């Protein structure tokens, strides 16, 4: 009876509430989860087709948007990597054992430094591409050259822009020559997929983009644009044949539809479950939610450049903002616990993170006092640019509400993501911008350099001391020295507050219990690590 009442209440909410489309979707999915329970109560349930799509050898995965290309030297947005990450291999691989991050050999068996700008890699022999070509150093050289080639305009250029070229010493030994000492070589090799040089040269990029050939655990079968991509297990995979024979990636952009696909057994794994839907999925028999904290953080960038003339150019105002935000309350109420507060712009997963650098805890009185020190005893008006993606609007409204308690009147300027990014890059966003950041390098350089080194497209901060620390940290291979530079940089950020770190994001996946799979902090989706039961 309670569930029937809940169903009726939910229906009533849907019919009468003035909800946005996204809110409606979320509410609708909540109702959808109540419906099967109600149908059992009312005796109207049917098992028709429920398990029709399931097979003991195949899994179906619900992606949020279409794959863009299967040429691994080009686009590398999350959904595209989810697919081609199973077709191609990298030379090294990120690994987490009991939460401890490490870089492991993969297509390369070892990596050593010859001098500050030369890295030597020994490659695995006997590895074949899906078309039978043998994997050698020429393929690595070709891949790097292609990504660095200005005429290719690869979106991955920034990943390896510190490389100069690759020398092929022999078929199974290569040397990566960097322009300057470049400590990020190992981590960037974890993101660089190796494509077959001969196949590429024979067939051209346009052909490869839709007919990929890699050395990975899965072979390409079919791509129907906007609908699905099918992969089959590579029985000759050098690291052992995958257990799951066939993987079908389905393109399902709407959250509600993706969840319906999971509920109707048309998908075994779905990405990007909204936090509001997670509790209901967790209580549905045969389904569960897998979660992991990821490298991506939510934060507020502040306009700290004195020449901007903005109130936030005063450090006291920036500190007042940092003190006035109660992040715990937002994480509890809006993220429903699916996030973790961060003190600095780095998470504990980053190289360069220091637990000794403090953060700003919620303190309304401190905020008011600092504001008065800045000459704004009667409050201050700020412009706050916010993108429409995800739950940003809700977060921004909560933050603005908290700021107003301290006398900071933040006027929200809600814009589409493209406009937000354009405004950010042109440094034209008012005083504050609500952003998210990930570099996928798990290294402080990927976050601190672009955001806080003067002169980058993202930075609104100019401090010669910060520039010096970040430049030194990126030009030495001495790990301990780098950690020292980054700790100083984090201390400087604490003192100057050009940005307010908010929380580390969590990725939520909806999962059929028949699929055994663990999410990774880098959000990569390797099916070779998954298995099916039953």
């Amino acid at each position, binding site marked *: 009876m309670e569930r029937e009442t809940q169903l009726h209440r939910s229906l009533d909410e849907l019919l009468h509430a003035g909800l946005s489309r996204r809110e409606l979707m979320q509410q609708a999915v909540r109702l959808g989860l109540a419906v*099967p329970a109600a149908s059992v109560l009312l005796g109207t349930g049917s098992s028709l087709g429920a398990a029709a799509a399931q097979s003991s050898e195949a899994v179906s995965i619900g992606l949020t948007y279409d794959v863009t*290309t299967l040429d691994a030297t*080009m*686009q590398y947005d999350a959904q595209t990597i989810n697919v081609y990450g199973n077709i191609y291999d990298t030379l090294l691989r990120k690994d987490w054992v009991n939460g401890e991050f490490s870089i492991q050999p993969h297509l390369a068996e070892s990596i050593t430094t010859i001098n500050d700008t030369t890295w030597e890699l020994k490659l695995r022999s006997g590895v074949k591409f899906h078309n039978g070509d043998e994997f050698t150093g020429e393929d690595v050289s070709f891949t790097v050259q292609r990504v660095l080639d200005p005429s290719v305009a690869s979106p991955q250029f920034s990943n390896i822009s510190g490389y100069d070229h690759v020398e092929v010493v022999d078929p199974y030994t290569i040397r990566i020559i960097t322009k300057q000492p470049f400590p990020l070589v190992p981590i960037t090799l974890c993101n660089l997929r190796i494509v077959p040089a001969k196949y590429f040269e024979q067939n051209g990029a346009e052909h490869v983009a839709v007919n990929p050939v890699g050395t990975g655990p899965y072979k390409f079968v079919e791509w129907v644009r906007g609908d699905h991509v099918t992969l089959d297990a590579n029985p000759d995979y050098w690291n052992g044949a995958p257990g799951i024979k066939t993987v079908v990636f389905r*393109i399902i952009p709407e959250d509600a539809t993706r969840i319906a696909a999971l509920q109707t057994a048309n998908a075994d794994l779905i990405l990007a479950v909204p936090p509001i839907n997670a509790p209901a999925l967790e209580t549905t028999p045969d389904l569960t939610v897998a979660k992991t904290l990821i490298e991506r953080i939510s934060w507020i960038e502040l306009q700290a450049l004195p020449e901007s003339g903005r109130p936030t150019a005063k450090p006291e105002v920036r500190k007042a903002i940092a003190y006035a935000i109660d992040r715990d309350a937002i994480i509890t109420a809006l993220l429903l616990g699916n996030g973790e507060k961060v003190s600095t712009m780095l998470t504990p997963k980053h190289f360069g993170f220091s637990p000794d650098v403090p953060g700003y805890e919620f303190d309304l009185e401190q905020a008011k006092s600092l504001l008065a020190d800045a000459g704004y005893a009667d409050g201050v008006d700020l412009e706050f640019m916010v993108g429409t993606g995800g739950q940003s609007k809700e977060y921004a409204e909560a933050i603005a509400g908290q700021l107003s308690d301290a006398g900071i009147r933040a006027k929200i300027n809600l814009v589409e*993501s*493209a406009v937000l990014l354009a405004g950010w890059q042109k440094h034209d966003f008012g005083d504050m911008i609500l952003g998210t950041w990930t570099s996928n390098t798990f290294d402080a350089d990927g976050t601190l350099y672009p955001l806080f080194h003067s002169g980058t497209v993202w930075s609104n901060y100019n401090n010669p001391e910060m520039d010096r620390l970040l430049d030194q940290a990126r030009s030495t291979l001495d790990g301990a020295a780098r950690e020292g530079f980054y700790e100083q940089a984090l201390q400087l950020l604490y003192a100057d507050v050009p940005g307010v770190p908010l929380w580390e994001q969590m990725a939520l996946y909806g999962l059929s219990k028949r699929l055994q799979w663990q999410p990774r902090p880098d959000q990569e989706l390797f099916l070779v690590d998954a298995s099916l039961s039953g």
Partner: protein
Amino acid sequence: MGLYIIGRVYQTALVLFGVSAVVFLLLHISGDPAALLLPQDATKESIEQFRHAHGFDQPLYIQFYRFLAGAVRGDLGNSLKFNQPALSLVLERFPATMELALAALVISIVTGIPLGIISAMKRNSPLDTAAMVVSMLGQSIPAFWLGIMMILLLSVKWQIFPPFGRGGISHLILPAISLSTWSAARVARLTRSGMIEVLGQEYIRTARAKGLANVVVVQRHALKNAMLPIITVLGLDLGGFLGGAVITETIFAWPGAGQLAMQSIYSRDYPVVQATVLLVASGYVLINLVVDVTYAYLNPRIRFG
């Protein structure tokens, strides 16, 4: 007739030029594809390299000229995201959108017209009231709401239809209903009012006085005349379906041009958005031309100068 068609082709070219110019301008002033397509930690150097490679560092009028020069040769550029010719990407998706739009049109016709006729024939009866309430609801309910409700009830709860994707007829029914509801309701209301007006005409009374059966009066005399405005509306709605498919295709994960357009708008993939808009606009103009010609055929009072 020949002059009329030449005039229409000229108008079509003007419309397509206008549409291209507006879309080009709006897209270019509302965001930067480099910011959306490159990784977040992209360096200034790589952003500039991307812009230069795609000509975005050129003045806007030069970019527009290049776009037009390519368009007249049938080259709408390469997708920034997919690295494939934009036109072929859209054309590849168009059959799915047309399939959905035609299915929605069929639903509009087979539900809207009979409902309107029955309402007109049984005017002011409870049946008429019920039919008009249903059509009022159909015009009021947003397509995305109806789509989600149908997925929840007919896919998740009763498991009658698959919740998403393209396949056989079973995959087509829910998105087609979702897309057509507004149009079917409008057609029902127009049919009703048209039929009521025609049924009151003297020639209908004459036909009845001749002793013709009611079915013959309705089919041969009343419906043909009442159909004229409905054909216009159906033509407009078919064009509207091509645009409206953006939402429906996204909700039902239907792999058509609408879903592609949505993804391309978010990433400011200019060539794909422009190709989609040009194709939809061309389709819309063509459908209207066909409607006008059909109108003339059905109504001898209309003559083209």
